[in-house]
C-alpha cells in the first residue's frame, strides 16, 4: 500500500489480547491468541481445516463470545458490544445473500438499517454495484446470478455501508480456479483503493501469499508464524509452516555441532550437511531440515556447502521446468525443480546425479515424523 493510500485510509485496527476459546469446556479451540492488526492492513488467517480460523473471525464479528481475553477494535474493548453495533462488514463462505431480496435490496439492507434517505441509498447501491462491475444486475435475485457474480455482490454488500473493517471467511472457496484467481486480484484491488482493514480467512496458501500484507499461519488453535508472505516462504519458523506453505523437501537428522547461525547435521544415513540454525537449540537435538525444491541446483556446484549424490526415480515434464523426484540420503521423495534450459544435459530416470544447495537455503527446524 502506498503512503498516500495509508493517509486517507479509513481502516480500523484490531487487537486480540490473550484470547482463548472453548466450545465445550474441555478443549481449547483457540489457545492464547495475540495479534495486532494495523490500520488498512490485509491480514490473512491461513491454516488447515479445524485450526480455529473461523472461530477467531466469529469472535471478532461478535457471533461467538471469547472464553477468555479481550478483543480491541480501534483500541476499544468490544467483548460486550453486540454484532450489529460493531460496524464490521462480513463476507461469508456461502455469501449469505438474502434469497428473497433482489441484489439492490440486499445492498440497500445495511443502509436501510442505518435509516439513510432513499436517494442516498440508491446512489450508494449504484456505486457499490459499479465497484464490483455489476452495474446492471440490481434487479436480479441472487439465485439468478452465477457463483462469481454472487461473490461480487457479497463483497459489495459488505462494503456498501463503508465499514472500517471487513471480514472474509473463505469467500472464494466455492469458485473454480480461474474465477478464484480473478477474484483474488479484484478483492486485493478493492482493498487497496478503499484502504479498509481486511481480515481474510483461507486454507489456500497460494491465496494467502498472493493477497496478504501479512499471513498468520494457524495450526491447532495457535499461530505458528505471523509474517509477510515472502518471509513466510523463505524463512519458515518451524516445520509446520515450512510444510504448509509451498513445496518442501524434508530431511531428518541430528545436530552435530553449532557454529553461530549455522549448524552441522548428520542425516540418518550418515550424510553430513550444513544448514541455517532456525529452530534447534543444542547439539544432539533431532531436527528436520527444510529445503525448497527450486533452491536445489544440478550444475555449478563448485563452492556449494552441500553437495549430495542421488538417484533419479522419476521425471515429470512440466514445460518450463522438469520435476525430478530423487532418492537423496535415504529420502525417496526428494524433489528437485530443474529449469528447462537449452543446452543442458538430458536427464534420465535411473541415472545418478549430483545436486547441491547453499546452507542458507536449508533450514534446521523442529523435528517431525
Amino acid at each position: 500500500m502506498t503512503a498516500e493510500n495509508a493517509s486517507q485510509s479509513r481502516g480500523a485496527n484490531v487487537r486480540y489480547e490473550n484470547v482463548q476459546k472453548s466450545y465445550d469446556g474441555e478443549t481449547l479451540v483457540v489457545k492464547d491468541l495475540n495479534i495486532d492488526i494495523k490500520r488498512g492492513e490485509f491480514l490473512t488467517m491461513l491454516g488447515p481445516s479445524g485450526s480455529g480460523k473461523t472461530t477467531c473471525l466469529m469472535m471478532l464479528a461478535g457471533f461467538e463470545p471469547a472464553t477468555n481475553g479481550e478483543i480491541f477494535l480501534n483500541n476499544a474493548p468490544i467483548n460486550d458490544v453486540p454484532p450489529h453495533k460493531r460496524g464490521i462488514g462480513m463476507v461469508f463462505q456461502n455469501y449469505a445473500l438474502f434469497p428473497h431480496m433482489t441484489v439492490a435490496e440486499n445492498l440497500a439492507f445495511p443502509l436501510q438499517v442505518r435509516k439513510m434517505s432513499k436517494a442516498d441509498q440508491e446512489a450508494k447501491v449504484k456505486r457499490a454495484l459499479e465497484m464490483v462491475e455489476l452495474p446492471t444486475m440490481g434487479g436480479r435475485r441472487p439465485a439468478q446470478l452465477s457463483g462469481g457474480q454472487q461473490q461480487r455482490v457479497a463483497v459489495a454488500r459488505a462494503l456498501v455501508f463503508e465499514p472500517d473493517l471487513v471480514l472474509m471467511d473463505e469467500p472464494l472457496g466455492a469458485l473454480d480456479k480461474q474465477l478464484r484467481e480473478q477474484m483474488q486480484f479484484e478483492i486485493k484491488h478493492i482493498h487497496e483503493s478503499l484502504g479498509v482493514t481486511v481480515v481474510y480467512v483461507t486454507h489456500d496458501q497460494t491465496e494467502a501469499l498472493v493477497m496478504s500484507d501479512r499471513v498468520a499461519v494457524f495450526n491447532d488453535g495457535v499461530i505458528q508464524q505471523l509474517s509477510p508472505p515472502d518471509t513466510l516462504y523463505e524463512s519458515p519458523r518451524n516445520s509446520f509452516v515450512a510444510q504448509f506453505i509451498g513445496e518442501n523437501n524434508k530431511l531428518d537428522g541430528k545436530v552435530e555441532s553449532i557454529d553461530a547461525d549455522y549448524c552441522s547435521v548428520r542425516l540418518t544415513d550418515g550424510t553430513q550437511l550444513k544448514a541455517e540454525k532456525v529452530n534447534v537449540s543444542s547439539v544432539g537435538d533431532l531436527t528436520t531440515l527444510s529445503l525448497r525444491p527450486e533452491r536445489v541446483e544440478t550444475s555449478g556446484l563448485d563452492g556449494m556447502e552441500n553437495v549430495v549424490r542421488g538417484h533419479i526415480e522419476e521425471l515429470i515434464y512440466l514445460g518450463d521446468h522438469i520435476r525430478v523426484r530423487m532418492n537423496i540420503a535415504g529420502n525417496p521423495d526428494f524433489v528437485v525443480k530443474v529449469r528447462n534450459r537449452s543446452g543442458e544435459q538430458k536427464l534420465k530416470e535411473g541415472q545418478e546425479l549430483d545436486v547441491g544447495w547453499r546452507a542458507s537455503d536449508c533450514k534446521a527446524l523442529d523435528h517431525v515424523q
Partner: protein
Amino acid sequence: MTDATMADMAASGGQELKTSDGRSLKAALKASQSVERRRAFLLVLPLLALLVASFIIPIGQLVTRSVYNPEVASYLPETSSALSGWNGEGVPDEEVFAALAADMVVGAENRTIGRVAARINREMPGTRSMIMGLSRSAEELQPPYREAFLADDEGWGEQALWRFLKRETRIITPAYYLIATDLEYNAEGEIVQRPENYQVYRTLFWRTAWMSLTITALCVLLGYPIAHLLATQPLRIANILMILVLLPFWTSLLVRTSSWIVLLQQQGVINDMLVWLGVVTDSGRLRMIYNKTGTIIAMTHILLPFMILPLYSVMKTIPPSYMRAARSLGATQTYAFTRVYLPLTIPGLAAGVLLVFILAIGYYITPALVGGDSGIFISNLIASNMQSSLANLKLGAALATILLVLVMLFYFVFNKLIGVDRLKFG
C-alpha cells in the same frame, strides 16, 4: 443470447426436424417414450381407481343428494304436470285435484305415498296424517275431486300447501341449502330468515370459522418457537425434541382428548392445583372444558404438530449465516428476524396455516368430546344430521357441501395471496 444462437434457432424453427430415416422428430420422440408412459400409467392406475372410488364418487354423491328432491316430481307425476298450469293464486282447479287423486291411487299401490307425505310434513308439520288418511280411501274418491278432497280435510284448501307442492315439482331444490343457512320459503314462496329460535347453522359456521382461526393462530404462536428450537439445536437434542413433537401422533386421538378432560374438568388436575395455590377459590373453580375454551385448548394441542413439521423442515434449510449476515450489516435481532428470517419461513408457515386451518374447520371428535354445547363445530351437526332420517341426511349433505365450498374458497384466496406452489409441507 448471442446473435449466432438466435440465428440457429430461427433456422431450425422454420422447418420441422426429421430423424435420419425421415420420420418427424416429434413423432419419433413420442413413439420412443410411449412404452415408458404406458408403464407409468399402469403403475398409478390402482391409485387413480382408489381415488375415484373413495373420493370423487362419494363427493359427487354428497353434492347430488344435497339438491336432489324427487318425491313430488317422481311420485306425483300427474299432479306435477297439472300444477304447471296453475297460476299460484287461491286453490287450484278440478284438473289438479283429479290428477292428485290418480297419483294417490298409484302411490298407495306402490307404497310411495308415505315418502311424499314425509317430505311435505317436514316443511308443513301436520300434513302427514291428512295425506295418509286420504290415500287410504283414494280409490273410492268420486268427481268432483276438489269437493271430495275438501270434504275429507279442510287442509286441502290451503293456498300455502299448493304453493309448496308447485315448488316441489322441481327435481332439484335449494331447500336444504336454505335451511343450512337459516333461511326458508315463507307461505308466499319468498326466501326469508327463519324464526330466530331455529337459527343455528349460520352461528355455527361462523363459530367454526373463528375458532379454527384462533386455533391456527395459537398453533403459530406456539409452534414457531418450537420449530425454531428444533431446527437450531444440535442433532442429538433435536432428535429427542422431535420425538416429543411426534409422540402425540403415536397415541390415539381419543386418549389425547380424554386426557384433556382429566386435566381441565372442574374437579380436574389444573383446577385442583389452582385451588391449592389459592389462585381460585374452591367454589370458583374455572370452567375450562365442555365449552369453547376446552375445544380450543384440546384442538391446539392436537393440531400443533401439523404446524411444527412444515415450519421445521423449512427452518432447517435456512443457514445461520443469513441471520449473522443481517446482524453484521447492522440489524438488531428483531429487525433481522422480521426482514430476513420470517420471510424465509413463509413457505413453511403458510403450509402449516393451511394444514391446521383446514383440518380444524372440519374437526369432529375433539369438539364432540370436550366442546359441550357451546364448543361444538359444524361437523358435529353434519354428523348428527347424517345419522338420522333421509331428509336430515340431505340437510347434512348440504351443510357438508357448504363446508367444502368454504374450504375451497379459503384455499383459493390463500393461493392468490401466498401462492400454493411456494408452500413446503415437509
